């Protein structure tokens, strides 16, 4: 008993140490329409840029200092990081250093906690703060977001910071798209990750019925466009369901970057959903197959093993 406890303690020590060194004062960005997607939320993509006046950045943070009665938070954005020797977020331009910075929104006074979430500000405010006036950019722009914590007199007492990335370049389209029947009404799809920059992060699968590979007229039995995804990150296979058996579908795959910029479609591959036999199905449909395969359920196996272990233990005690 002592050794397991020591082992647990030994394992817990590094974790405790790590917990003590986790930095505070971190700003995160939640993707609109999700509850906790802080991967895509940290990006401004082509779609968000095009709709920047009506699309929000959703912020959450944990400040370095506890809330002070009468205090406030001020969100700032800049094209440069907070200097290492400073605790004051940059909030105005400085032409001599090439700094573009601005306050975002008004001071937040109704959040009397160290941790704050659900704060929304328009994408346009962040782009304007760093002088990004166009959605046609070729490289990734980093927007340094710094939330200044202020006391009741407006003096800076702490901060939290994070990074937004602005990118509109899509990844390359997936190659080698293949599709085949998975189950009734479902297709299994696989593809090869495109070798591109930015890298593909996840994928969308689309299936549109066709009359034949040479005739893209939708089949009247199922004319709707079916979609699935996004897949888990970096997956190179997926499934799409809700299809009609016996109908041919053109299946395409779209790659998305972390910014959720979408590539052109990869494919198409053509496949027809239908009943698929796993080994048991195939066995059961073979003439001469038995009904159940075995005479008992598998649950008795572990019990038998336990009984044997007890027998050996008893023999060992006797010796």
């Amino acid at each position, binding site marked *: 008993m002592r050794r397991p406890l020591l082992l647990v303690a030994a394992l817990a020590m590094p974790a405790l140490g790590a917990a003590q060194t986790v930095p505070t004062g971190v700003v995160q960005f939640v993707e609109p329409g999700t509850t906790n997607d802080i991967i895509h939320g940290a990006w401004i993509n082509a779609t968000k840029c095009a709709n920047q006046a009506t699309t929000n950045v959703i912020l959450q943070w944990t400040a370095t200092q506890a809330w002070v009665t009468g205090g406030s938070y001020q969100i700032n954005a800049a094209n440069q990081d907070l200097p290492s020797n400073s605790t004051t977020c940059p909030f105005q331009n400085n032409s001599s250093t090439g700094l573009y910075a601005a306050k975002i929104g008004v001071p937040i006074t109704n959040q009397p906690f160290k941790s704050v979430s659900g704060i929304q500000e328009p994408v346009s405010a962040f782009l304007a703060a760093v002088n990004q006036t166009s959605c046609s950019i070729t490289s990734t722009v980093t927007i340094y977001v710094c939330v200044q914590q202020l006391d009741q007199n407006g003096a800076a007492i702490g901060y939290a910071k994070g990074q937004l990335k602005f990118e509109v370049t899509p990844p390359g389209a997936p190659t080698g798209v*293949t599709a*085949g*029947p*998975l*189950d009734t009404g*479902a297709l*299994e799809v*696989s593809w090869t990750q495109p070798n591109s920059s930015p890298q593909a992060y996840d994928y969308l699968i689309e299936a549109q019925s066709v009359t034949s590979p040479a005739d893209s007229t939708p089949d009247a039995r199922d004319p709707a466009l079916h979609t699935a995804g996004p897949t888990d990150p970096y997956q190179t296979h997926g*499934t799409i369901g809700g299809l009609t058996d016996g109908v041919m579908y053109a299946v395409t795959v779209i790659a998305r970057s972390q910014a959720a910029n979408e590539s052109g479609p990869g494919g198409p591959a053509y496949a027809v959903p*239908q*009943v*698929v*036999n*796993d*080994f*048991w*199905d*195939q*066995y059961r*449909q*073979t*003439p*001469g*197959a*038995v*009904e*159940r*395969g*075995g*005479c*008992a*359920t*598998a649950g*008795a*196996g*572990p019990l*038998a*093993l336990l009984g*044997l*272990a007890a*027998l*050996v233990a008893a*023999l*060992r005690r006797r*010796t």
Partner: protein
Amino acid sequence: MRRALLAATLLAAASPAAAQVSPNGIGLGPSPRWGSFDVGVLRYKPNVDAGLGGTPWQDTFGKSYGWMLQAALWKSIFTGAASGSLEVGFRSGYFQRSGHALAKDASGAWVPTSADTAFKIVPTSAGLQYRADQLVERFGIPFAVYGRVMFERYNWWVTSPTGSWSVKGATNGWSATGGIAFLLDVLDPTLAREFDRDSGVNHTYLFLEITKAKIDDFGSSRSWDLSPKDPALAAGLTLVF
């Protein structure tokens, strides 16, 4: 996990034995014997297709054989230089075969799809084993022959293309095995003695064996046949401790 538990059991059993033998580290002959532990692989393909009007196993998984990993722990009932060793024990292992699910093409023939299906077995067995190791113990000739009879229970399941369990069950049967074991101690006797002194392992054998098994619920008409397709070959290591 199971093999780790077995190994832990082996070490726990072996260490006290070693301590009884030579507390000062000077050889006093072999340490007392508790039993043995063996681990190996069995060349295996079930005889599922036998007697059917088709070949579902071959169509799904192909013609080739697979390997079943096995580990066993044995307790000596009696042992002696003149009598050999009779042991009782249990064994478990794992076997998996993956293939492609089948669908009918336009002509009505079954063809493989890109969807996966798998057949998996966790065998649990118990039985008796007799090792004629008199040549080793009395004359130093590094070979022992052995025989074994086991009650077998194959716990199995099939996975569908969606990854879920399509069906699960268990099939019982028996097996009889004969084998020959080569005593590895002769390759480095000094190391072998140190291994005994440090860990309580008397002997280490390399074994090769052939098994005849019948895994069909003892001929039940409601069970399929998971017996090895041919008398099955297995090989591995045995530690006598």
